[in-house]
C-alpha cells in the first residue's frame, strides 16, 4: 500500500528558529547525516551569520551529492507512520504573499513562538492567516526554551496568552510543545531538562494529526468550470465540466444550478480512456451530460435540489489584503469565488485589524497591505456560495486589483439583499414548473433567437415608450418573435383585483415580472418599460425572470442604475436608439444571426 503523505507548513516570526526546527526535524529523522546540522550551525556562528534556511538547503545538497534534486520550496522527511513534506513559508512580513501561497497547500501547521520574546505581532497575524486559510490542525512549538532555562512558568504563560488569542479566531491547537530546536529537546527526542512536561514531542504531535476527512458526506457542490462542445472527430456531447468540491454525484441525480435556478438531471458521467464511474466524489474533476439541455455557464454551482447554496449580492466576509495599494471603499475590484467572477465593492467595514498594531479599529475607510478586515461586500451579479464554516471550498474567494490577486477571504455569512425574497420565490416557481416536450433549444431554433427581456428604464417623460414601440416593430420586421409588454395591459389583466397600483408598487411589479416570465418561457423577445425610481426595482425583475437574461436600457440625463447595459439621452432619435440596442443584443448573441 502506498504510504500516506502530509503537507506541513512551519510558520513563525523571523528569527524564532524556523530553519533550525526544520534542520532538527531533518537531522533527527535521518535525512541529514549525524552531526551535520550542528556543524552547519557552528560554521554560521563562526562566520557571524544568522543560520538560515538557505544554509540548511546547501547542507542538504552537499550531503546528498548531485543525486537528489533539491526542491527549495519543499523538503521531505519521514516517520514510521507517514511521509511529510515541509512547505517553506517565509516568516518575514515582506513575504506574506509567499507565506500564504505556501501555507494554503498545507494540511497542518506548526506555529513557532520564541520563548524569550513571547507572542509577537507576527505570531498573531500568522494565526489569523492560518485560521482564514482553513488550516485547523495546528501544533504550537515554543522554541528556544533553553534560553529561558527550560522555565515552566514562562512556557505556560505563553501558552495561556496564545491559546486565548487563537481560540478567539477559531484555532484550537492540538498541542503546545516546549522545544529547543538547536539542542534537539522535544523535537524527536524527549528531554531531561523538560521532565516537567508530559505532552508529546513535535514529531509525536504531528503523527497524532489526522488526514483531512473527505468532504463526501457534505451537500453536493460542483462549481461549473466550463461547458464543452467540441464538435470534432464525431463528438457532439455537451459536457458540463467542473470539480466536485463537496458531496457526491451520480448519474440520474436531479440537480439545480445556482444562481440561475435551472434544474436538470444528470444523464451520464463522462471520462476519457476509462469506463465511467458510478459516482464522482469530493476532490474529483468531473464531466457530466444532462437530460434536459439547460443553458448554464461558468460560475454557477451545481447542487442537489435539497441543501442548496446561498445566493446573494451581499455577504459578510473576513478578508486579508496583500496588495501594494490599499483596498478602498467605493473602488471596484474583481471577485473570484469558486469559478464565478464578478465586480465587487466594499459595502461596509465593520472593523480592521491594523497591520502594525493588530488592534481592532473601525475608523478606517480602507484596508492596507497586510491588514485583516471584517467587511460586507456587495457584488454586481448575484453569486452562489456557502459560509466557510459550513463548506470551505465554496466559502472562500480572492480579490483581483488590476491584473493581480491582491487579497483573499472567507465568507462569514449571507446577507439578504433586496432581491432575496424574489429570488427564493422564483426558485420555488421554477422547481415546480411543468414543462411541455418542447425544449428551449428547439424554440430558439424555430425563432432563430433565444428568449430575452429588454427593459427600458428612466424617469417619466423621457420617451421610453416611443423607443420601446419602435424597437418591437423593428425586431419583429427583422424576423424576431418580439412582443411589447406594456404595464398598462398587465394592470388591466393580471393586475385586476388590485385596488390601486400606487398602494402596492412591489406587487404590481411582481405581476409584470410573472407575465414577462411566461412570455420568455414561450421563447419571446420581450420589450418592456418601467418607471424605475429605485435602483433595485429592475434588479428584482431580473431576479424574477432569471434564468432568462435582461438587457437594461436607460434613458435620461442621470447616471441610471449601476448595471445599465445601454445608456441613451432623453427623447433619443428612434433610429439611433434602435441601432444601439440592436448592437448590444447582437453582441450578446440574443438576435438572429445575419438578420436585424
Amino acid at each position, binding site marked *: 500500500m502506498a504510504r500516506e*503523505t502530509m503537507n506541513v507548513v512551519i510558520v513563525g516570526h523571523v528569527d524564532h528558529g524556523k530553519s533550525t526546527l526544520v534542520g532538527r526535524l531533518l537531522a533527527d529523522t535521518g535525512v541529514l547525516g549525524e552531526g551535520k546540522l550542528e556543524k552547519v550551525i557552528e560554521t554560521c556562528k563562526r562566520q557571524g551569520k544568522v543560520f538560515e534556511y538557505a544554509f540548511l538547503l546547501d547542507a542538504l545538497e552537499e550531503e546528498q551529492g548531485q543525486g537528489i*534534486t533539491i526542491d527549495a*520550496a519543499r523538503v521531505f522527511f519521514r516517520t514510521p507512520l507517514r511521509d511529510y513534506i515541509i512547505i517553506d513559508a517565509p516568516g518575514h512580513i515582506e513575504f506574506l504573499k509567499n507565506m500564504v501561497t505556501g501555507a494554503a497547500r498545507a494540511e497542518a501547521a506548526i506555529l513557532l513562538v520564541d520563548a524569550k520574546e513571547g507572542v509577537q505581532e507576527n505570531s498573531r497575524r500568522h494565526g489569523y492567516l492560518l485560521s482564514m486559510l482553513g488550516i485547523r490542525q495546528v501544533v504550537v512549538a515554543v522554541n528556544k526554551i533553553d534560553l529561558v532555562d527550560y522555565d515552566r512558568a514562562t512556557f505556560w504563560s505563553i501558552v495561556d496568552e496564545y491559546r486565548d488569542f487563537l481560540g478567539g479566531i477559531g484555532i484550537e491547537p492540538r498541542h503546545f510543545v516546549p522545544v529547543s530546536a538547536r539542542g534537539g529537546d522535544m523535537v524527536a527526542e524527549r528531554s531531561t531538562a523538560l521532565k516537567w512536561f508530559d505532552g508529546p514531542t513535535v514529531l509525536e504531535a504531528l503523527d497524532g494529526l489526522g488526514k483531512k476527512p473527505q468532504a463526501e458526506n457534505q451537500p453536493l457542490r460542483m462549481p461549473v468550470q466550463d461547458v464543452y462542445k*467540441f464538435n470534432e472527430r464525431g463528438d457532439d456531447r455537451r459536457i458540463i465540466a467542473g470539480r466536485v468540491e463537496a458531496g457526491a454525484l451520480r448519474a440520474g441525480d436531479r440537480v439545480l444550478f445556482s444562481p440561475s435556478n435551472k434544474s436538470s438531471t444528470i444523464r451520464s458521467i463522462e471520462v476519457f480512456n476509462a469506463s465511467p464511474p458510478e459516482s464522482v466524489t469530493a476532490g474529483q474533476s468531473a464531466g457530466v451530460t444532462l437530460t434536459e439541455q439547460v443553458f448554464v455557464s461558468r460560475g454557477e454551482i451545481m447542487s442537489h435540489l435539497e441543501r442548496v447554496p446561498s445566493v446573494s449580492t451581499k455577504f459578510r466576509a473576513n478578508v486579508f489584503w496583500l496588495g501594494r495599494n490599499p483596498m478602498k471603499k467605493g473602488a471596484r475590484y474583481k471577485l*473570484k469565488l469558486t469559478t464565478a467572477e464578478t465586480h465587487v465593492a466594499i459595502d461596509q467595514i465593520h472593523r480592521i485589524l491594523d497591520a502594525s498594531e493588530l488592534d481592532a479599529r473601525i475608523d478606517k475607510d480602507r484596508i492596507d497591505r497586510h491588514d485583516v478586515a471584517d467587511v460586507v461586500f456587495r457584488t454586481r451579479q448575484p453569486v452562489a456560495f456557502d459560509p466557510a464554516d459550513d463548506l470551505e471550498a465554496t466559502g472562500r474567494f480572492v480579490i483581483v486589483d488590476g491584473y493581480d490577486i491582491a487579497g483573499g477571504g472567507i465568507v462569514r455569512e449571507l446577507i439578504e439583499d433586496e432581491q432575496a425574497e424574489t429570488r427564493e420565490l422564483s426558485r420555488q416557481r421554477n422547481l415546480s414548473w411543468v414543462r411541455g416536450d418542447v425544449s428551449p433549444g428547439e424554440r430558439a431554433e424555430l425563432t432563430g433567437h433565444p428568449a430575452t427581456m429588454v427593459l427600458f428604464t428612466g424617469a417619466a417623460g423621457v420617451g421610453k415608450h416611443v423607443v420601446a414601440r419602435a424597437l418591437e416593430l423593428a425586431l419583429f420586421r427583422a424576423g424576431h418573435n418580439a412582443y411589447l409588454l406594456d404595464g398598462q395591459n398587465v394592470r388591466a389583466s393580471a393586475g385586476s383585483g388590485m385596488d390601486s397600483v400606487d398602494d402596492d408598487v412591489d406587487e404590481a411589479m411582481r405581476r409584470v415580472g410573472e407575465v414577462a416570465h411566461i412570455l420568455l418561457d414561450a421563447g419571446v423577445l420581450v420589450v418592456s418599460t418601467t418607471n424605475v425610481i429605485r435602483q433595485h426595482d429592475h434588479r428584482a425583475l431580473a431576479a424574477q425572470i432569471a434564468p432568462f437574461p435582461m438587457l437594461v436600457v436607460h434613458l435620461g440625463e442621470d447616471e441610471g442604475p449601476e448595471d445599465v447595459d445601454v445608456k441613451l439621452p432623453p427623447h433619443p432619435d428612434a433610429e439611433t436608439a434602435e441601432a444601439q440596442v440592436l448592437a448590444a443584443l447582437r453582441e450578446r448573441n440574443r438576435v438572429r444571426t445575419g438578420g436585424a
Partner: protein
Amino acid sequence: MSQLDQLEEQSVYIFREAFRHFDDLCMLWSIGKDSTVLLWLARKAFFGHVPFPLVHIDTSYKIPSMIEYRDHLAREWGLTMVVGQNRQALAEGMNHTRGRMTCCGALKTDALRQTLDGTGPRMRMGQDGEYHEEENPAPYTGVIVGARADEEGSRSKERYFSPRNEHSDWDVADQPPEFWNQFKTDFAPGTHLRIHPLLDWTEVNIWEYIEREQIPIIDLYFDKGTGKRYRSIGCEPCTGSIESPATTPREIITELRATNIPERAGRAQDQEDTYAMEKLRREGYM
C-alpha cells in the same frame, strides 16, 4: 484517492482553467516523457480532445525518430501541431561546436521566444497531415509547459500560473500569490503566462503514471537490446544515453528509486555552468 489521482486531478483542473481564460493558448511539446504525459492529461481534461495547438521547437538536430514519432501521434490523435525554428541562426551555420550555451540560446531560447510572440516562422500541420507556413502568426498569451518543481533548483520556486514580461523574463523575487486554486489569469498587454500543470509531479510520478495509463511514449527511453537507453532526450549531438537494460516503465521506476544520478546528467548544457538552467530559464527557455 491515491497520490497519482490527486496529481492528475490538480493537473486537469489547471488545464481547464487555462483553456477557459486564454484565447491564445498553446502547449509546448518537446516529445519527451514529461510533455507527453502533459499531452495525455490534456486529453483527460478535454475528454479526448486537445483544443489548442502543440508547439515544438525543432533545432534541426533532434534525434530523427523524435520527429517521426511526433508527426505520427499528431495524425493519430488529431493534434494541431505547430513547429518553430530559428531559421536565421541555422542559415548562419549555428551548431553545438560554437559552444553549447550559445547553440541552446539561439536554437532553443531565441527560437521559442520568436515562435511564441509570432515574430518567427511557424509551420502548422494542416488537414492534409502536411506542414504549411502559418500566415500572420499571433502571439500566444498562455503557454502550457511541462516543468516540474523537482527538476532543478530554479523550478521549485515556480507558480502554477507564472507571469512573464514583454521580454519573456521571469521575476523570481516578486511572484504573485497563488492559493485556493485561484490563479493569475489577468495580465497586461504584451505579457504572457506560463502555465505548469506538472509542477507537483516528480520524475518517479511521471513513470508511474506512464505505466498506469499505458501512455505510448517514445521508445528512446527504453533499452532495445544494446544495454543503453536515454533518460532525458533532446538534440542528438548533446544527449547521451545511459547504461541501463530497462525495457519497461516498471523497470525504470525500480532503477530510479535506487539511483543517485540526476535526471539531466546526460544533458550537456547543464554541465556547462552551474547556473545554466536558471539562466536559460530566466531568458525564456522552458
